[in-house]
């Protein structure tokens, strides 16, 4: 392993709207090496990958490829330098054929006088598919492939780079296994090993055992920094986990002292709740003032479940009861009418109308509260908005400021004000602290405790297990669309992360 590094990143930093996503990160990749990159959500893994792929440009720091400085302005340039990426969310266009996808943007190589030679293109695509041992016709429409096959096509697309550059390749794999079956993962890994003579790999995954299995070396990231780096053979899953989280559970960080036993009264109940293709036979009971955390990886069905509870994805079987009445929610207005509120993960898309000021955003879900004889009362509405801004300590020059100009934490408080003004009894927190800095996170935790004390029930899908465990009264663990475990999370009896992980993967 004394070999010289092929790809070098030195002191790379990147900030978004005041949040330091990467803080002086240095990483090196040697020829033919598989480097694992692990860290919690928000640790900076994806930002790092996007910098390598030419999607983002770093604020500072240097990139060296084969000893030469690397300046990437676009993914296309990264491609020409022999850097390919297999994205977590698949980037293939489903309405094009496999061959068209593999050579998207590169058709020039196969065309004369502006006319594409399809036989040449298909033959070349066939060669790429052979590299990943995928025996499909390159003329197949991508939409007809299985998910795993598409992942392989992505890999083939990345490998097609080697014919365009003399260089050794660097292939970035961003969570490629999160939705694959074991058998498909085996195939992928086998291909990765077989291709090491032509390429180096950077492998990002939240499945730590897989990272250890395939990687030569592992980097651990936390809060935008590399906190550890070691050969994969010299570490293990619990150690990686400890490094990722980086601190023992702080009871007061999640305001555990304020956690009270919820009331007996049930406000929501699911019995054998099923949504075809997403999750099945989910049972849970939500009590008044309870925080129910749902843990699970991408594809576990927890995201779909939360969307069912707010009317985005109606369930197909089973029973959902809200406030004692059986319901099937087919649109958000029905959920809102039942006193359910939704704090979305996509705060800037589904949470707020960014181009409007704070006032109309706060009353958007409950305009009736400021109406009298069929007319909106502007003065009353403004006063109400001001009282929420004061109560939740939204930092803004005035309630007329556009939500666009607020920081993430303050935006989240406006979203919360909206549902508090609507007097929602059940709040669905979908990744409520995503993209927030530590101070804003703590304010959100405080608010959640206050809501819980006031008898508001909360369903929580959090960014990290730590958050899920710290905040919840009880926890539901899901895997592959089914509930695999339930935990009581009363302070003092809170489960450990490894207990949950065991049921998640």
């Amino acid at each position, binding site marked *: 392993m004394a070999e010289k590094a092929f790809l070098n990143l030195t002191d790379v930093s990147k900030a978004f709207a005041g949040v330091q996503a990467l803080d002086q990160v240095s990483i090196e990749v040697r020829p033919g090496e598989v480097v694992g990159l692990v860290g919690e959500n928000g640790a900076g893994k994806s930002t790092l990958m996007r910098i390598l792929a030419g999607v983002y440009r770093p604020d500072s720091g240097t990139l060296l490829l084969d000893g030469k400085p690397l300046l990437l302005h676009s993914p296309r340039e990264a491609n020409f330098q022999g850097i390919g990426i297999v994205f977590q969310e698949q980037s293939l266009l489903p309405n094009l054929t496999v061959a068209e996808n593999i050579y998207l943007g590169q058709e020039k190589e196969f065309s004369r006088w502006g006319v594409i030679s399809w036989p040449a293109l298909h033959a070349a695509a066939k060669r790429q598919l052979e590299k990943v041992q995928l025996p499909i016709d390159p003329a197949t429409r991508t939409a007809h492939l299985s998910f795993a096959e598409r992942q392989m096509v992505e890999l083939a697309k990345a490998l097609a780079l080697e014919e365009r550059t003399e260089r050794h390749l660097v292939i970035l794999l961003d969570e490629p296994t999160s939705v694959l079956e074991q058998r498909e993962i085996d195939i992928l890994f086998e291909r990765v090993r077989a291709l090491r003579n032509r390429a180096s790999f950077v492998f990002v995954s939240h499945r730590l055992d897989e990272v250890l299995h395939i990687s030569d070396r592992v980097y651990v990231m936390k809060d935008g920094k590399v906190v550890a780096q070691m050969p994969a053979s010299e570490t293990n899953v619990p150690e990686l986990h400890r490094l990722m989280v980086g601190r023992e559970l702080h009871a007061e960080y999640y305001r555990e002292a304020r956690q009270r036993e919820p009331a007996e009264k049930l406000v929501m109940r699911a019995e054998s709740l099923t949504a075809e293709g997403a999750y099945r036979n989910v049972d849970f009971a939500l009590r008044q003032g309870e925080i129910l955390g749902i843990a699970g990886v991408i594809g576990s069905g927890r995201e779909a479940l939360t969307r069912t509870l*707010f009317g*985005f994805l109606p369930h197909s079987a089973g029973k959902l009861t809200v406030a004692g009445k059986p319901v099937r929610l087919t*649109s*958000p*207005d029905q*959920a*809102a*009418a039942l006193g359910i509120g*939704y704090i*979305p993960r*996509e705060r800037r*898309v*589904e*949470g*707020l*109308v*960014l*181009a*409007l000021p704070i006032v*109309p955003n706060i009353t*958007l*879900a409950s*305009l009736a509260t400021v*109406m009298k004889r*069929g*007319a*909106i009362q*502007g003065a009353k509405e403004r006063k109400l908005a001001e009282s929420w801004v004061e109560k939740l300590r939204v930092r803004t*020059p005035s309630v007329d400021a556009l939500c666009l100009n607020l920081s993430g934490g303050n935006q989240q408080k406006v979203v919360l004000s*909206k549902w508090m003004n*609507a007097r929602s009894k059940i709040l669905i927190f979908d990744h409520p602290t995503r993209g927030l800095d530590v101070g804003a996170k703590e304010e959100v935790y405080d608010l959640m405790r206050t809501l819980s004390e006031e008898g508001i029930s909360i369903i929580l899908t959090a960014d990290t297990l730590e958050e899920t465990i710290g905040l919840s009264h009880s926890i539901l663990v899901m895997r592959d669309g089914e509930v695999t475990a339930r935990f009581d999370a009363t302070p003092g009896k809170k489960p450990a992360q490894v207990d949950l992980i065991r049921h998640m993967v």
Partner: protein
Amino acid sequence: MKKNYREQIRGLAPLLVLVGLVLVIGVLRPGFLSWDSLVVTVANTAILFILAAGSTFVVMLGSIDLSIQAICSFASVIVAVMLPGYGYAAFPAAVAMGLVIGTLSGLFHVWLRIPSFIVTLATSGLLVSAALLFSHERAISIDEAGRARLAWVTGDFLGLPNVIWVAALVTGLGIWSQKYTPFGRYSIAIGAGEPATWASGVRVNRYKVIAFAVSGALAALAGVLMAGREGSGSPTLADQLLLPAIAAVIVGGTAITGGAGGIGRTAVGALIITIVRVGMTFIGVDIFAQQIVFGVVLVLAVALTIDRTKIVIVK
């Protein structure tokens, strides 16, 4: 706060353009600034404004209604055909037709999730044919008895033509509903951020249909007024009005992408369009060439008012 200052200037721009145009024409032809001449100009704007006013809400939603001129013409035919036999009932019948057609367009738009420009383009084609059949492909002039019943359109009140009062009423109701009703509030919210509005429990589809219904009804009202002023109904009466009407909405400052604007702004926009037309006649632009100017004005207005930072892809 510097940004807000700039946005305020931008918001006032249409009004400044209007004042500038009036002054320019006033200097070139001093008679234009006389009371009588200004009243005539405003009266001539009224119908264009009412036509544009209805579609303002639709544009605020981020959609578009291309059927307004067809509804307007059809309404004039209904008035001309029905007035002799049914008397005053012809007016509510015409407006009801607009309301129903607008509602249907809205329903097809939201139920079948068809882009609004396609639905209303289809509606427009359908209405043009219907109006041609209904009128036997010709203009129907309204006889003396019928004209007596049109006195409310052609008459004056307190020294101003009645069409101005109708337009003022539409403006008032429009501004009021934008400021004080959920419909007005949600129209802006949907245009500015439909996913968030939907995820706040707003019945987005319902308000979209209402906007198209309002657009249809006001387009029909414009047709009724036109029939009154022209003394006839014709299946091609409003053919040349679609472009100026949409230009009026956009020139006034309602964003084509939705989420900003209002009927007050459309009033300013309609006046600008009328004055540009007067100016063109004054400098001798051929009447048939005027659509060229409106087309250019529309594209320029969109280019100037659009906030490109918020738009990723233009289709």
